[in-house]
């Protein structure tokens, strides 16, 4: 049972890293960016290519899996996304779906449609077992790695958000864009950097997730639902909201499939609907925010 919990937490953390960028951009820029999954895909493919073609070690590729989508995100933000902020939500959805289609087809063209398989370094393969009997905790080393990295990132993000100047500027812009601009905050720069970091995190998540979730050109479309669930349930006004939502989702999914395999697939959707009906703004909403 503990192993299932552990697996669920790992899965949830992964989802969190993938979805946190989406959550922040939605809260900040009020922009429904369904192309978020495409950045994750770019990160995953970057890692694969670097490892296969240039024989770079896995750990080395991870920062690059963050950097490349971040750069790409920054570029796209300035050129394509910025004119879209004022447009109605539906047009944003249309736009981002269009981008996603293009990304999926382009990746298909360049990389082919087979599932990409990643070769982990030996020290990440393997498993440690603690305890015995019903209380055995089996920890796959890779999942442990994921949990540690994501935990570190979460703490880092939370720190940036709450204790740095940039963080306070970000929060101000989320709460009220016009007033923040009026106070002299360079809102455009805040948007740009947030979008870039969010996309970078997605890329990192994509790279980390290749082993667990698989990677092929249809990745953005397949997992979009999960990202959206995390964001919808977690709310868009904090980091802890999506974190808890992702953990809840991960554990529910894994535990559900283990204990009630017949209804494994239903559990997640059902849980989401119930939570959203109970708390339509998401589970965790900051008091006083305008959304």
């Amino acid at each position, binding site marked *: 049972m503990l*192993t*299932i919990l552990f*697996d669920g937490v790992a*899965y949830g953390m992964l989802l969190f890293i993938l979805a946190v960028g989406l959550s922040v951009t939605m809260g900040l820029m009020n922009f429904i960016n369904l192309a978020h999954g495409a950045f994750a895909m770019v990160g995953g493919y970057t890692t694969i290519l670097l490892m296969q073609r240039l024989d770079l070690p896995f750990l080395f590729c991870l920062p690059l899996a963050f950097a490349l989508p971040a750069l790409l995100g920054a570029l796209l933000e300035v050129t394509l996304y910025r004119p879209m902020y004022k447009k109605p939500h539906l047009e944003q959805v249309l736009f981002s779906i269009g981008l996603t289609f293009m990304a999926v*087809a382009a990746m*298909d063209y360049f990389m*082919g*449609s*087979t*599932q*990409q*398989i990643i*070769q982990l370094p030996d020290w990440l*393969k*393997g*498993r440690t077992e603690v305890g015995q009997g019903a209380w055995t905790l*089996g920890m*796959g080393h*890779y*999942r442990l790695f994921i949990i540690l990295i994501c935990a570190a990132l979460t703490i880092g993000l939370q720190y940036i958000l709450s204790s740095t100047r940039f963080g306070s500027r970000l929060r101000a812009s989320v709460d009220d864009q016009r007033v923040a601009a009026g106070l002299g905050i360079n809102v455009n720069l805040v948007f740009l950097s947030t979008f870039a970091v969010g996309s970078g995190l997605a890329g990192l998540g994509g790279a980390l997730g290749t*082993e*667990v*979730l*698989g990677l*092929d*050109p*249809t990745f953005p479309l*397949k*997992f979009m639902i*999960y990202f959206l669930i995390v964001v919808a349930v977690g709310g868009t006004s904090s980091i802890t909201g999506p974190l808890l939502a992702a953990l809840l989702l991960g554990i529910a*999914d*894994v*535990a*559900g*499939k*283990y204990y009630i*395999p*017949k209804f*494994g*697939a239903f559990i997640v959707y059902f849980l989401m609907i119930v939570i959203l009906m109970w708390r339509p703004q998401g589970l965790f909403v900051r008091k006083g925010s305008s959304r």
Partner: protein
Amino acid sequence: MQKRIFISAAALALLAMSATATLAQDKFKIGLILPMTGPQATTGRQIEAAARLYMAQHGDMVGGKKVELIVKDDTSAPDATKRLAQELVVNEKVNVLAGFGITPSALATAPIATQSKTPQVVMAAATSSITLASPYIVRTSFTIPQAAVSVADWAAAKGGMKKVVTLVSDYGPGIDAEKYFKERFALNGGQVVDALRVPMRNPDFAPFLQKVRDIKPDALFVFVPSGAGAAVMKQFLERGMDKAGIKLIGTGDITDDDQLNDMGDGAIGVMTAHHYSTYHQSAANKKFVDAFQKANKGLRPNFMAVGGYDGMRVIYEALKVTKGQGGGDALLAAMKGQIFESPRGPMFIDAQTRDVVHNMYLRKVEKKQGQLWNVEFDVLKDVKDPGKAK
């Protein structure tokens, strides 16, 4: 106002443009409907490549007619397949319908084949009941029961396995695999301790595999659609199941040649049963693999490709016999009963069931010349589809 008129005019113009008058006289058209995009896209790619290879090798003039291949993408949506099939038959007047990447696509098209008396060559879909859906269906791929039953026979008799857990994807072919494996394994004195079904859009096999580990059977029998095999393999190793003494067995879909080489050394030793391995040692196969790799940038042909290749062979040979006369019925008659040497080995199309009869090979994953291959170590000859051989 103008906008709306413009839109309607543009729409009508588009319609008019797409109305191509087909003047098919001495043409023989093959309508190849495949999933070229979406989750089954690799199937579509492999089959199209194989079909084009066959045409390149054997020319496009057969029986006095010029052969034309029309490829359509059905995105694995069965109602799209049906509409495309209907359009191909009605508008393009194709002589043969071919392809069909998944079972629902093949089944949806069956009524069209029957109504229009067009032979339907199924090159990929593998559920047993497909050939029963229409008297015009001929299959050149394989059936899941053939593979499942072969694994069960071997596992009980020579593999020494007594307790097995089955893990299949929760859809038609998966349930088929589970059913036939269970029956045959029980017949041979074994016991299927638990039968797990994994939802189709499952991103994570972890909880199911954890359950298997807790049960600790002699072996785990797996069936998942081609493409998901790697994920299962990885999870299997990650959970240390091989170290816990659980062997991994299954149909060849889990060690799909398309992906096998990328699965890593953890896949070594996995035992599967299937009708085709790229490593099959025969002159015909060597020729096929070399030509395929040359034409497709080193891509390894897998069992989907061989289904497409042999499907084209069946069509070509039938056309040679009928010389384009007699319509669909004559073509169908010429397809039934064909016996030939395929890259997979010897095979024939059963005249009664119109289904494929071929050897089932037991293979183990081994490393040869630095690459992973499915190496055959045993063979069950001329296996008919158990679903019909009752």
